[in-house]
């Protein structure tokens, strides 16, 4: 599987060799920890994935994945000041779990956008370590609190299965108990 991904990545003329190496390293790290997660979406999106520089007025975060355009948007000024590996892993998780214009257990309306970012960051920390003054602190804490009520398995399955309804339903059912 990883060899196949390497070939696909090498075939993407929009990404520089150095960035390809970085992405492949992160994909390898992800796959070694989450062997049961499908990489089919990743394989498809890597074919046309673009890395795009954006102005500080349009890109609020150092690095962010936009599923609709299949682009990783970089705020160059902020990206150079931050832990690039950490932020790139966060964006990569978006590519791995992308669907239409969202990723993870979010939906097209953005109902779970904050929780989804919190969970993505929890996974990122788990894979490549944490950073100082983490931007997603609030979101991670809320996700962890909610996971105590609805179960971590629900979040895991919903995240990699793009199933926002499962999270919403679990939150309502847990509340009713």
């Amino acid at each position, binding site marked *: 599987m990883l060899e196949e991904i390497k070939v696909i990545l090498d075939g993407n003329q929009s990404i520089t060799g150095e960035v390809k190496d970085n992405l492949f390293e992160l994909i390898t*790290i992800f796959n070694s920890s989450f062997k049961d997660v499908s990489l089919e979406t990743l394989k498809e999106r890597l074919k046309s994935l673009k890395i795009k520089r954006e102005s500080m007025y349009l890109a*609020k*975060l150092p690095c962010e994945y936009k599923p609709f355009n299949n682009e990783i948007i970089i705020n160059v000024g902020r990206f150079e000041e931050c*832990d690039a*590996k*950490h932020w790139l*892993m966060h964006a990569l998780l978006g590519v791995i779990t992308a669907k239409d214009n969202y990723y993870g257990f979010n939906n097209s309306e*953005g*109902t*779970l*956008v*904050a*929780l989804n*970012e919190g969970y993505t960051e*929890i996974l990122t*920390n*788990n894979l*490549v*370590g*944490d*950073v100082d003054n*983490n*931007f997603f*602190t*609030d*979101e*991670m*804490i*809320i996700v*962890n*609190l*909610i*996971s*105590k*009520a609805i179960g971590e398995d629900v979040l895991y399955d919903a995240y990699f299965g793009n199933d926002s309804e499962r999270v*919403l339903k679990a*939150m*309502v059912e*847990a*509340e009713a108990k």
Partner: protein
Amino acid sequence: MAMELLDVANKNFSEKLGSEEHSSLLPEMQNMIMNMYSIEKYNFVFDERLLPNLDGYNISYDGAKLKAVEQSFLQKSSGVNQNEMGITR
């Protein structure tokens, strides 16, 4: 209540994106969750994936586990595997 919580979470996130001067709504969200799910304040298992920056949020934790978490979060993203540091769940 679930949708209200999500609205507050999304609003908090959106405002944070828009301004560095944003005042966190985390305490409000924490209280909402505790009320929604009848969670006792001092009955949380501390998840090592969280930042240990929880002062003032009334969450109890195991002392030894927290120390391990603090160590892990002092590491930069250099590929250090938490399992290599002997951190267990």
